[in-house]
Structures are given as C-alpha cells and as structure tokens.
C-alpha cells in the first residue's frame, strides 16, 4: 500500500526529469495526477502518436463555456512525462483533483474560483536569489540529492514549512478552496488504497499539495468528509485542444504560466541527454541564438558565440550564482552578439525563448462547442477549411452566399481570421464580396480561446464585439465596429456597440474625432440598406454625433495652426462625404450653419475656411457673389500670402471644374497671383502647385486657356492658339503657366 507523493513544479523540466527517474526507480501500479477527473475519460488519447504537445486539457461547463479550466501540457511538463510513462506500460492513470462539476457549480453559487497558489517553487527560488526557478531546482534540489525520492522528500518538507508560514487567514477564500481540493484528493487516495491495498500508487501533484497527501499524516475522516459531501453539480465536458508555446505563459488550472517555454525545452532536452555538461548547455543555447540572428541577416560569428559564453559565465560569477541562467545568456548575447541593442534580442525571445510550437490532437479527440458549431456551419454552407489559399467571390443577393459572408464577418470579429477580404476598397455598397480563405492550424487555438465568448459563432461574436466596445474610447474604432456588426448580422452586437459609441461621443470634446465617425456610420446606413438590415438606430446615433460635432466646430476652429487645420480640413471632408450619402435635410441645415461660421469670419485658418466656403457654394447655400466677395477678401494683398494660398487650396480641393466655369472666380485668382510680390510668389509656388497638381491634365489645360482669354482672347473661341495668347499675356499668365507646370518660356504648352 505504499504511496509515493511527487510534488512538482508544473511546467518544470527539472521536476519532469526527476519524476521520470522516480517512476523508473519505483514503478507504480496506479498513477494519480493533479487535474479534475472529468479528464479520466479522455486521458488514453494522450498516448496516441498524433497527440503532440503543447496541448491542453480543456474542461468547461456545458451551459456556460466561459467557465472553463485549461490544463496545458508541454514535452517538459512532469504531468505529461508521467502520463506517457504510465500509458506506455499499461499502468492505469486517473486524475485526483476536485471534480469540475462541483468546482464550477460552487463558483456559480458565488464561491470564488480556486486557483493554484501561484508558483511556490519559484517563490522559494526567488528567496534564494534565483530569478530562474529551474536553475534553482538544478542547484538546490538536483545537485544536492542523488535519489529522486530524496529530492521529493526535500521538496515536501520545504513546502510544509512554506505552508506553515502562510500569512493568509483560515477563512481566506484561497485557503478554504485549497482545503476542499486537498480533502477530495485524500478521498481519492483513500479509495485507491482501499481498492487495492497491496498496490503501489504514485501521485504527481503541484509541490504545494504534497505535504497534505502523505497517508501517514492524513487528518481523520471526520475532518475531510463535510468538505466533500453534498456538493452542488453542473454539467461538464472535457476535450483536448492544440496549444502553443506562447500560450504556456498564461495562468491556467496548473497555476502560473511559464515565460520561457523554449528555454525550458532546451534545458529539458539538454539535461535529459547522457552526461549533460553545464558549459555545453550555455554554448548550445548561444549557438541557437546566433543561428536565429543569422536567419535575420545579423552577423553572429562562431568566435562571438565563444565570447558570449565566456561573458555569461563570468556574469554568473559576478552575480554570485552557481551556474549560468537565462538572464546571463540574454545579457551576454545582447552585449556580444547584438552590439548592445535589445531589438534583435526581442526577436530571439519570441522565436527561441518562448518558441513558436503548435501542438496537435488526434482527429478522434472530442472538440469544444464553438468549434463544433463552426464545423456544423462549414458543412451546411459548404465552405470547407483548407490549408491552401482559396479565393471566394460572393454575391450577396443570393441567400446562401450572404450566409457565407455573414459567417466570415462573424469569425473576423471573433478574432478567428479564417477569411480576409480580398478587395476592401470595393465591398461597400455593392452586392459583391471577395475573400481569401486560408485555414492555419493556429486558428484552432484562436477558436478555443474565442470559446470564452460563447458556444455558437453568432453569440460569441456578439459578446466579443460588446466587450471590445466596452473597452474602447476611440470613436472611429467604435464606428467601424458598428459597421462590422451590421455586416456580420449581429443585432445584439450593434445595440451594444451603438450604446457605447453614444456614451463616448457625449463626453468627447475632440471635434475631428467626432467628425470622423460620420462617414463610416453613414456608409453603414447605406450598406445596411443593401443587406436589408434595419439601421434606424445607427441613424439616430449618427445624427446625435453629427450635431455634437456641429456645435463644437466653430470653437474648435479658432486659432488652428497649419497642421491642425489640415487635420480639421480632412475631418470636415469626411463628414461632408458621409452627410452627402445620408441626404438628411435637417442635419444638412445644422451642418451648413456651422460651416457658415467657419466661412465668414476672417480669423479662421485658410484651409478650413476655404473648404467650408466651397461646401456651402456647392450646396447652394452661398451665392456666387458672396463667394466672390469672400474670396476677394481672403486673396487681398493685405492678407498673408500663405494663408491666402491655404484658403485657395481648401476651396479648390482638387476640383478645378469650378474655375473652368466661373470666369469671375478665375479672375480673382489670377489677379491675386499677379499682385503677389515676386519674392512671396517664389515661396508660394510649391504650395499653390500642390493645389493645382491634383487637377487632371485636361483641367489644367482648360484653365490655362480660360486665363489666356481673360487677358484678351475671345471667350467663344473654342481652340485659341496658345502661342499667340501667351505672347500677349500679362505676367500673371506666365505665373499661372508656371503653376500649371508648363514650360512657358519655350512658348508651348505641355
């Protein structure tokens, strides 16, 4: 009836090696592993050849999959090593923690979730001056005790004193939860011993629990029984799911994650080999670092690797550490291989220290509910995942194709980017959509992660959108999200995001930010029409936001510098495009009133005032005479020339037709340019050129012709001879010619 308790560091390669040695030394007849027993039914899958770590056991409440616990396993996890050892030898494996059915039900009833107590061995290591718990294991546990049994005895004793010194009060929720779990573990142990009194049982659990699981020191049954009887239940399911190295760093059912899985793998591989050599450990690691750097075309010679290894060793001595750890290797690599710069090392970190491994699970393994829902829709919509890239064109008027579009949009919101829009520019307002589909294995993990948001794609996407809206203060992002929810046909999402947008807009004082929401929301309204979605609520929020912007506009445009005036001009343009789509007479009236207050006064920055004037002119809100008067004032000699040029740029905004058709305005521009002093003109040239550069060649030609006529040509002459006119022209024509980029001096038009 002997029970061997192996208290490990979860994800600790040192623990993993000791566990393997211990199992070899005293082969058990039964293996009990920390983890909830719901995994018992699928533990055999861990023995299959297609099960490749990192993988995670996922246990979740069927009615509320957000309530879930992950048990990640890497190659170097003691649990993985122990389970594989047992399965290979036909030794039965069971899990001994408090069942999730009770744990989740207790949480539902208000008990705080019982997490593992962090990483107690890392705490011990830190107390001993180590920043790498594995190096501490190596020095303090491994080197000091020859037999694995002695090591685990030492760990258990150390943990007993740590628990002794635990400062938390008895009624601390963490303490209470832990007591219940350990009572359950003892219950399982008692049952196992009773079942087979002569069998040898091995227990692999987190070091923290080890002192509580020694049968000789068990408390009386009466102590444990009340803790584990009459517990509530809820329906629970379990699955294996592929995991990634990066995700091993997340906190999980096994407590704190580890930040350097790649380094741990290296430690595990190296020290599991025959006659491991400390110095080799550093050198082989630095060789890998150098190779990674070289892949990025950074020079890292073998000689430098040797120097880096020497530096790492000296560093560990200077720091008073018995051996080289990852910190020393990092510092040495940075100084010797990266010329002191941290940037290349960051790259090494994501590639090597964390690692980029993706595990896989056998096809026969059960899947999570969200994945099941997606698989169902993929079948019914006949949209199969494939590892190679597919191009898909969808016609949104056909219901089946619209459904595919909706599914892809929902997945995008969920952060499972299976499809990427192939031509983002054209999708709005048309009946066509193009996608590039590519199923990468990581998407399986994204899907599991997205599982926290719901059990169906639709519900999860809505919840995710609402959550993003909750956390975002960026109006443009929110406006975009509204559109995304509409195209993804998520009415709940739309409602939630709109509410957030409305609330944020109410407290937003940044007028350009408000203006920037107008266009995407207006497009959404239009697009909603294409898809036959009700957009009344979007319209309400849009109107409210636009009105807020109109109110703030005049104040916001006072005293703008050149750069902010450009920003404001762009924002006004966007809003104008949006409002034009909307065709809302009331809103337009408010908008024009606000613009009038930018157009009339002379202190408003040129770009903005010019733009406002032009919009009012185009909308028929301003008579040509008024426009001419305002332009005249703005382009008078008294006004600073750069401001005048900015006004003109704002006013024309790349659209020359106006000048072509309005001789009065063209005359004003011409007169202004000819009056400007030569020196000022030179300064102005690039600015005004920019204005005219936006025009098409044909527009420029026509303007040139009109200008010529202003100075004597006949207005009704359809094709004046440019050469002739230029000869008679005033200097202004030359000026305009230069503006338009003509080689005037040679007497010919470009």
């Amino acid at each position, binding site marked *: 009836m002997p029970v061997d308790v192996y208290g490990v560091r979860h994800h600790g390669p040192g623990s993993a090696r000791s566990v393997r040695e211990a199992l070899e030394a005293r082969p058990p007849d039964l293996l009990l592993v920390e983890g909830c027993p719901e995994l018992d039914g699928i533990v055999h899958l861990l023995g299959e050849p297609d099960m490749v770590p990192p993988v995670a056991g996922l246990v979740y409440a069927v009615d509320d999959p957000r309530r879930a616990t992950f048990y990640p396993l890497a190659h170097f996890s003691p649990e993985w090593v122990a389970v594989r050892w047992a399965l290979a030898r036909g030794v039965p494996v069971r899990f001994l923690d408090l069942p999730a059915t009770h744990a989740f039900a207790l949480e539902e009833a208000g008990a705080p979730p019982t997490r593992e107590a962090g990483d107690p061995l890392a705490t011990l290591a830190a107390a001993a001056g180590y920043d790498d718990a594995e190096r501490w294991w190596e020095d303090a546990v491994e080197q000091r005790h020859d037999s694995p049994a002695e090591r685990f005895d030492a760990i258990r004793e150390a943990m007993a004193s740590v628990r002794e010194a635990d400062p938390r009060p008895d009624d601390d929720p963490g303490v209470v939860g832990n007591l219940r779990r350990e009572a359950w573990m003892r219950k399982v142990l008692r049952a196992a011993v009773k079942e087979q009194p002569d069998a040898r049982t091995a227990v692999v659990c987190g070091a923290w629990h080890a002192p509580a699981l020694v049968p000789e020191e068990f408390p009386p049954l009466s102590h444990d029984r009340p803790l584990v009887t009459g517990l509530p239940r809820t329906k629970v399911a379990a699955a294996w799911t592929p995991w990634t190295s990066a995700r091993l760093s997340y906190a999980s059912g096994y407590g704190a994650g580890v930040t350097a899985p790649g380094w741990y793998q290296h430690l595990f591989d190296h020290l599991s080999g025959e006659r491991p050599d400390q110095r080799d450990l550093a050198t082989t690691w630095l060789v890998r670092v150098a190779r990674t750097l070289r892949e990025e075309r950074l020079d890292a010679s073998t000689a430098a690797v040797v120097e880096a290894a*020497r*530096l790492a060793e000296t*560093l560990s001595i*200077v720091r008073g550490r018995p051996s080289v750890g990852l910190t020393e290797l990092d510092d040495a690599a940075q*100084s*010797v291989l990266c010329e002191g710069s941290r940037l290349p090392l960051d790259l090494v970190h994501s590639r090597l220290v964390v690692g980029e491994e993706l595990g896989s699970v056998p096809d026969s393994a059960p899947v999570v509910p969200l994945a099941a829902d997606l698989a169902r829709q993929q079948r019914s919509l006949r949209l199969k995942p494939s590892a190679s890239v597919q191009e898909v064109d969808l016609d949104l008027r056909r219901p089946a194709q619209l459904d595919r579009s909706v599914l892809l949009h929902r997945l995008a919101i969920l952060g499972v980017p299976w499809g990427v829009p192939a031509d983002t520019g054209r999708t709005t307002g048309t009946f066509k959509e193009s996608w590039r589909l590519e199923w990468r294995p990581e998407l399986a993990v994204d899907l599991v992660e997205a599982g926290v948001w719901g059990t169906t794609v639709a519900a999860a996407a809505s919840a995710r959108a609402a959550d993003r809206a909750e956390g975002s203060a960026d109006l443009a992002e929110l406006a975009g999200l509204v559109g995304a929810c509409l195209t993804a046909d998520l009415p709940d999402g739309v409602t939630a995001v709109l509410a957030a947008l409305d609330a944020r807009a109410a407290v937003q004082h940044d007028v350009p930010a408000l203006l920037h929401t107008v266009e995407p929301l207006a497009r959404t309204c239009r697009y909603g029409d294409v898809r036959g979605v009700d957009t009344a609520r979007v319209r309400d929020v849009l109107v409210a936001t636009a009105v807020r912007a109109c109110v703030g506009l005049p104040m916001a445009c006072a005293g703008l510098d050149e750069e902010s005036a450009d920003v404001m001009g762009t924002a006004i343009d966007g809003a104008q495009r949006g409002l034009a789509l909307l065709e809302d007479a009331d809103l337009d009236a408010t908008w024009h009133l606000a613009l009038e207050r930018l157009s009339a006064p002379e202190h408003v920055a040129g770009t903005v005032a010019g733009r406002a004037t032009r919009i009012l002119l185009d909308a028929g809100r301003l008579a040509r005479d008024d426009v001419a008067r305002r332009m005249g004032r703005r382009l008078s000699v008294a006004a600073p020339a750069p401001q005048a040029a900015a006004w003109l740029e704002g006013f024309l905004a790349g659209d020359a037709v106006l000048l072509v058709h309005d001789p009065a305005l063209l005359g004003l521009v011409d007169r202004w340019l000819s009056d400007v002093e030569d020196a000022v003109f030179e300064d102005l040239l690039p600015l005004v050129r920019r204005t005219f550069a936006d025009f098409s060649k044909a527009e420029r030609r026509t303007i040139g012709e009109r200008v010529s006529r202003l100075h004597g040509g006949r207005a009704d002459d359809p094709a004046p001879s440019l050469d002739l006119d230029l000869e008679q022209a005033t200097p202004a024509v030359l000026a305009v010619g230069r503006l338009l980029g003509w080689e005037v001096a040679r007497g010919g038009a470009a």
Partner: protein
Amino acid sequence: MTQVQVDTPAVLREHAEQAYADELAALAAVDDRPRPPSWRLSPWAVATYVLGGRLADGTVITPKYLGQRRLVEVAISSLATDRALLLLGVPGTAKTWLGEHLAAAVSGSSTLVVQGTAGTQEEALRYGWNYARLLAEGPSREALVPGPVMRAMETGAIARVEELTRIPSDVQDALISILSEKTLPIPELDEEVQARPGFNVIATANNRDKGVNELSSALRRRFNTVVLPLPDTLDQEVEIVRTRVTQLGASLELPADLESLSEIQRVVTVMRELRSGVTTDQRTTIKSPSATLSTAEAISVMTNGLALAAHFGDGVVRADDVAAGLLGAVVKDPVQDRLVWQEYLETVVRNRKEWNDLYRACRDLG
C-alpha cells in the same frame, strides 16, 4: 592633439581615484573575493563601488552610476573576460563618467585617456618620440614617448578611449591589432611591447554620431557593447540629477539644502518633454530642439542655478536662477531652436498655473 592627463594635485576636479580614495580603500580592505590578474578589486567590489552599498564594517559606498544594475555587471564582466568594453549612448548618459569610475576601481587609475577627435593621430594610440633625444641619440627606448594605451599595456592597466567614432578610421585600425594581438610592435627599435595581464580598453562612443567615422566591423567585433540608456522615468532622472547636483554643490562649496532642489523636478520635466516631443500627460505634441537634452544638461542647468542662487540670491534655487540655463541648453540653433522654445513656452509652460513664475522668468529673457 592627444591630451594625456597627468596627476597633479587637482583642486578643480579630482580624478575618481582621488575623490573616492576612502571608499576604494575601504572596499579593498574587506574584499576577499578572487581578483582577476592586476585588478585592485574583485569584480564584486568594483560593482559595489559603482552601484553603491554598505559594507560589513559599516562603510557606506555612494552610488556613482544610477541605473540598471545589469548593465554595470555586464560591463565589469566584460573587462574581467579580457574583452574590450564599448560604452555606447547619446551624449550625457554617463559614458565617460562610468568609464572613469570603472578604470579607477579596476586599475586604481583613470588617467590613461585618449581623447578622440578628428585630429587624433596614431601616436596617441601607440607612441611618439622625444625628438631632441631622437636626434641626439638615435632611436632608443629612452627617446620613445609612450601614449596612454601603451602605458596601460606596460602596466597591465585600463586605458580609456573617449569618443572613439570621432577618431579617423585609419587611426581606429591601430586599435584592432592592439586588441587582437595584445602586442604593440616598435619597428624602429625592432622590439615589441607585450601587454601585461590586466590590460584592457574602455571606449566610449556617441550613437547619435552615426556615420561620422562608423566603427569598422572588425573593430566592433573586438568589443563587448553596453548601451547606456536615457533614464526611463521622470523619477529616476530627478534622482540622478538630485544626487549629482548635491555632490557637485558640495565640491564647489555651494550650500545646497534639499529644499532648494525642488526646482529639479521642473527642469527635468522640461528636458524630458522637449526630448520626447510630447508632454508628460501625453496630450500635447511639441517640437524637439536640435540638441540632445540629456540628463547631463539638466545637471548643469541646476548646478548653474545653484551657483546663481548662492552668490546672488538667498541660496534657494528659483525659476529666475534656472531660466537662463534652460534657454542656453535648449537654444543651440538661434532660429529653429528659438521657435521651438517659444512655442513650448506659450503652449505648455504658460498653461501650467503653478509654472507661472517659470513662464515669466523665461519670457523676460526674450
């Protein structure tokens, strides 16, 4: 030309090994850890000297470099593995300062320095001649005038090369063979100098100067590089300035009560905002001047302010005492920088109510 600094009873500015002779002696007395050949102290003691601490016998070691411990550890470990050390960073990040203290602690002398300039010649890195003797006696060891690097090789000490990237490339090349062969041939005498154990080089270079005389990759490979950063946070930087200004004030015999140092916070804030191009609250973007506004500039603005306050005021440093210093530090280019400074005054300083005095003091300067 090269300036070889000679030991004189310095009054104005003592060398590190003089100014901190007590601390170095106290460290040597308790230091029982292994020392690399020719080192006056163990690496541990050198680290304690640079980073500060309290010894078993109660002696307090003042911190010299305030910043990341690991950088200093890497620097010391490099020297202990016989690898030359390159301290890289923008101006005013304590490259020279750290190099001097490392040399003082390791070799007991920080005076074997080559000051790198465009005019630095190979003689500075090798040796020159006493021409009178050369002409009279012909080439001999007596007629040879060793440069600082050669002297460091002969004595197993640390030589410092300041502003390495300012030195012309062909002269830099002389360092490559010295660092790789650890010998210095003297063809005129058909001899060579072999470096004694303990010889090493600490070089500094400004990584803003990029492209001036970029280090050849052959030379770069001889060095372990430590990049000294600008301080991460306002508090760290204030702390550095406070420490240094107090020390400098003491050596100039300026009475600096900590009260009067409250101005530091503002000076450092101005420097950091102009350096980073954004106000501390991250709300307002501002333009940066052409000069690097380093911690060292803040130290010098404050030290000047302290002197002004001590000699012409009541000893408390106020806005009036630092305004001119700030202006001088920021406006290096009379046109561009002045605009930057004006804009900063009008858009940032002016809007801070509690900075009213500073605003007025700066505006009065024009």
